[in-house]
């Protein structure tokens, strides 16, 4: 090994407070909101209990915004502050540099996913209880964990395509937080919007089948993986093609 891109990326992450606090916010939001909602409404609100994952993952709707932000910030702050030139001077092989970013993003996402799902699971078990033997439960929990690194890498890659932190924050965070949910509420658009990455990924975290979704739970996660892979390739192309 000549240069150590992953080591450099990890050090960038630990030396900037706005970076290392974001995953903590994600875990706290997801687990905290799930705990609060399950405690307050878990036993009474049927929309939360009909599919038990609806209640368990309630906090994820909010916590995922922090995951989106972390994905954007990991590379976006390099564009915003101008440190990208220094980063590429240190690691001139752009593919190596980019792999370091993606790898750190995936690892952080996985850590956040594990902690988030563990927290949400504990909160749900302590309040309304959860039948771990019900079919699909473990699949839904695993999908919940994997949803995080996929979403994080997706946002990191799309920011690399946009090459602009502000544009990425302005575009991606409202889209993930409100947009795709709103789109699925429109009857005609729903047919197409259900194939969007976060919709597909979240479908994999549910126990019950939805009648108007055209794919299975496992396929949902696969669809999100495919989106992420395409975005990662597009990011690599953009980074390779443009002057830094």
């Amino acid at each position: 090994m000549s240069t150590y891109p992953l080591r450099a990326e990890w050090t960038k992450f630990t030396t900037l407070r706005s970076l290392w606090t974001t995953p903590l916010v994600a875990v706290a939001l997801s687990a905290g909101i799930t705990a609060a909602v399950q405690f307050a409404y878990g036993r009474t609100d049927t929309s939360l209990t009909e599919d038990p994952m609806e209640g368990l993952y309630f906090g994820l709707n909010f916590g995922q915004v922090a995951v989106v932000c972390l994905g954007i910030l990991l590379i976006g702050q390099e564009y915003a502050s101008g440190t990208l030139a220094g980063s590429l001077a240190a690691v001139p092989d752009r593919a190596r540099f980019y792999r370091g970013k993606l790898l750190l993003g995936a690892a952080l996402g996985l850590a956040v996913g594990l902690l988030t799902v563990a927290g949400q699971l504990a909160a749900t078990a302590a309040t309304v209880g959860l039948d771990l033997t019900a079919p699909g439960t473990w699949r839904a929990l695993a999908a919940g964990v994997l949803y995080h690194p996929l979403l994080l890498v997706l946002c990191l890659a799309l920011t690399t395509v946009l090459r602009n932190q502000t544009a990425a924050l302005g575009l991606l965070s409202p889209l993930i937080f409100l947009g795709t949910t709103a789109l699925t509420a429109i009857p005609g658009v729903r047919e197409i919007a259900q194939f969007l990455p976060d919709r597909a990924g979240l479908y994999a975290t549910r126990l019950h089948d939805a009648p108007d979704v055209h794919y299975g739970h496992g396929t949902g996660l696969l669809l999100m993986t495919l989106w992420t892979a395409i975005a990662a390739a597009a990011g690599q192309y953009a980074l390779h093609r443009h002057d830094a």
Partner: protein
Amino acid sequence: MIEIRDLTKAYGERRAVDGLSFRVAAGRVTGFLGPNGAGKSTTLRTVLGLDRPTAGEALIDGLPYQRLTEPLRRVGALLNAQAVHGGRTATGHLRWIAASHHLPARRIDEVLALVGLTDAAHRRIRTFSLGMRQRLGIAAALLGDPAALLLDEPVNGLDAEGIRWIRTLLRRLADEGRAVLVSSHLMAEMAQTADHLVVIGRGRLLADTSTAAFLTEHGRRRTRVRAVDPAALTALLAETHPAAVPLGDGGYDVPDADPGELGALAASRRVALVELSVTHDSLEEAFMRMTADTVEYRAVTA
């Protein structure tokens, strides 16, 4: 050694760098001069592989930057002192750069001491003045103990003490056998620092010469004379040196005149002199004259 060969960088129709070739030799400070917009920064960015050249190449010890295995041990660069994240501390900023090359933590303390930032090591960069950021940028460039240094306008934002410090530092780095390339749009500054000058305008090479040779070639020699009786001197020069320029206080600047001959002439005509000295055009004037045609943006006097 850094070698730039027939380098061209075009942005659409506009050529920021146009067929530029020069070398940066080890053991001396090479001043890279040109008016703003002449293509200095673009050239440096191309050397670092940040901008892809339209044609030609930039080589470090015979290799393009992207092919260097541990680039920071070969080339240290300061392109833009403001391109740092204000949220990191000085140490934090240097730590990620060191991590990319597995450089020891001790090295961070060394370079911070070298640039005089030891006391500010744990302060966030957003509280730094431009001068402190320049010092931090130089620390970052020196982190890998590189054989070559590229510094883009490093004296910007430095006070008089800082400028003197950087001059001494550049001298020392060159004396240690490193190749040092320093860009600037200030000729006078470079005249005091650089051994060798590369001057460009509109992306083209205008001069590639030693500082002394540049001065001899472009700094016109003038002989300054002053007499006890100014009227006698005026009469004498009107006859023998019509190109003499009056200085207003009775003295004259006589271009391209030999002081010995001028003194002898004055003595033969019984004109008593109180001053007879040789001056050169300043480098700044030579630089202005040379680049006058290539200045990109000029204020138009209506």
